[in-house]
């Protein structure tokens, strides 16, 4: 088809995007020639804001970096501060943090599965997964009092405690979710239209994973078994058993499969945590001023490695806080992947890498 080169703007506002991001994609007919990326539409300067607030306030500030993986952000931040304080956090608090991390992973992956299906025109799966996600959000709301901003973490422990009722609810909802995810996995593994749309699209090779520092499910879908729950585990992951799921293909379909299987693995982890969670206190008192020092914390967010660098100068405010979210390296490779594909593949590429713009912009 002969057609001159035109530029389609995707974003800052577009039905494809759930968060603002500007992509200018040049196409010739149905063929995509290349893309240009512009970030910063949700840049809130959190790294700068954090140095003018005390640590207690910062926990809540950091929670608002992202609406999906808010808990793992605060977990990483609190762990960083606790390491500087040399604080022995009770084991029960660690387990509750891990439980919420896993619930968050389930809800993030289900949310993503829904968005991918919506983008390839399969609204049914979108509705079904988002319904299943409600089961997790119900647990979250019951546990922490908020569906997405949990305010569970505090420096020195957690603010909530699990009781019998919570455990019952979690077990009930997780077992319901088991059936639903089983069905979902069957559909995604076997549905030929999903396969037709996702297989072979935007293949990320292991070399590119290394070059761009890609982490999380996307790296695992390219066969690189990088998972900071086992590579550099925050407690209690060193005492939990779980499988790292990898797929060799590296395309959008492999990423789908990896994520859905991870939901499965996370549900097993939740059940495991409920079984082995020790009794005891959930928090210890923490001093407000943090001794001088630097600390690096790496945590496994739903999208991959979450990196926190914290330097304290002995006051009650951090001197420098650097946050690297897993979406940033993915965004770097995105423009490279947005060429030699069709216009119809753009949603698959964008949705397949599970972008979190709020995380990336900070």
């Amino acid at each position, binding site marked *: *088809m002969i*057609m001159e080169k*035109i*530029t*389609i*703007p995707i974003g800052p506002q*577009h*039905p*494809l995007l759930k968060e603002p991001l500007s992509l200018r994609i040049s*196409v010739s*007919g*149905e063929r995509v020639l290349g893309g240009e990326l512009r970030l910063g539409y949700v840049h809130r300067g959190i790294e700068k804001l954090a140095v003018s607030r005390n640590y207690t306030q910062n926990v809540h500030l950091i929670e608002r970096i992202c609406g999906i993986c808010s808990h793992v952000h605060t977990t990483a931040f609190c762990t960083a501060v606790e390491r500087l304080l040399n604080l022995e956090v009770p084991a029960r608090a660690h387990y509750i943090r891990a439980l919420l991390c896993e619930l968050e992973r389930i809800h993030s992956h289900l949310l993503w599965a829904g968005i991918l*299906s*919506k*983008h*390839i*025109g*399969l*609204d*049914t799966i*979108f*509705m*079904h997964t988002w*319904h299943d996600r409600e089961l997790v959000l119900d647990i979250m709301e019951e546990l922490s009092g908020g569906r997405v901003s949990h305010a569970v973490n505090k420096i020195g422990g957690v603010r909530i405690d699990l009781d019998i009722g919570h455990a019952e609810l979690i077990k009930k909802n997780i077992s319901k979710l088991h059936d639903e995810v089983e069905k979902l996995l069957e559909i995604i593994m076997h*549905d030929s*239209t*999903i396969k*037709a*749309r996702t297989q072979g699209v935007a293949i990320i090779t292991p070399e590119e994973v290394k070059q761009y520092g890609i982490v999380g499910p996307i790296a695992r879908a390219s066969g690189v078994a990088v998972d900071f729950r086992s590579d550099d585990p925050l407690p209690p992951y060193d005492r939990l058993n779980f499988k790292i799921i990898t797929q060799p293909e590296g395309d959008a379909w492999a990423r789908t499969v990896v994520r859905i299987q991870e939901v499965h693995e996370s549900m097993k982890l939740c059940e495991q945590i409920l079984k082995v969670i020790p009794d005891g206190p959930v928090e210890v008192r923490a001093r407000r001023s943090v001794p001088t020092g630097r600390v690096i914390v790496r945590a496994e967010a739903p999208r991959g490695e979450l990196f926190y660098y914290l330097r304290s100068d002995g006051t009650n405010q951090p001197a420098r806080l650097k946050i690297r979210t897993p979406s940033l390296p993915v965004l770097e490779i995105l423009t490279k992947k947005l060429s030699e594909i*069709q*216009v*119809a*593949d*753009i*949603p698959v590429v964008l*949705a397949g890498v599970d972008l979190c713009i709020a995380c990336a912009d900070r």
Partner: protein
Amino acid sequence: MILQTLSFILVFPGLLFQVMCGWAFEWLDRKLLARFQRRIGPPWYQPLADWIKLISKEDILTHGSNAFILAALPIISLASVLTAGIYVPVAQFNRFGFEGDLFVILFLLSVPTLAYYLAGIASIGIYSILGGSRSLLQYFSYEVPFLLALSGPAILAESWSIQDIIASQVDMGPFSLFQPLGFLLAIVGLIGKLKRDPLDIPSAKSEIVAGPLTEFSGIKLAFWRLTMNIQAVVGIFLIINLFLSWSFLPSLIISSLIFFVECILLTVILSMASAIFARLRIDQVAGLGWRILVPLASLQLIAVVLMGI
């Protein structure tokens, strides 16, 4: 006499009936889709409410576009589907049938697609232009198998008049029994014609916003929506007439009842198809159309011709 003709055109089976059926179809489709997706779905008056809301909205023109063409296109397409609706027999009520009316209906049903393409080109916008070219590409993919599938009954009945086709089905039994493949292909073609999921490539929301209709708003968009709904209704009526007319119908009431039940069933099939299929890519649609549907339709046609001999 004139009054009677006017009532045919304006009330039944013309404007009013078509519009009502269009809204009923939209409601049923949305409701079914909602239920397949575990939602409640809209109340029965939702399509009407949406339409009223749309016509009360501000009408926005893109800079540099021709106001007259953009206003004319939805009216032309609405008029053509309404005209097609008059010629399609409804529950064996057929006042305007003539030899060759099938051709006229098929032509009139194609007009909205062409208008849709022109709308994409005329409303200056990147998404519209892309959507327009996509709708034309898709048109070439589904139209041939659709025509081939619909000519099956005509060849079997040895007439291009819908009335004759119905009459010969009364003798022989519904044609869908003789040509199930043709029936299926006709449904696929109808999905393509209506630009419904999974063949909603020209208006793929996550890719090109709303395709050619991106820049439309207000009353023009309302007319476009009405056109789509009536096009669906006329298409469903046509397929039911050509493939699913029954021979053993004792009375008019029961035959109308069966006709509408069949229409509802076809709507259910369309809704199910949009619930279980992901949207295809344009190259996949072209491949599907030319590599699978056209050979299958030709096969069906050959079988029909052999049957006729």
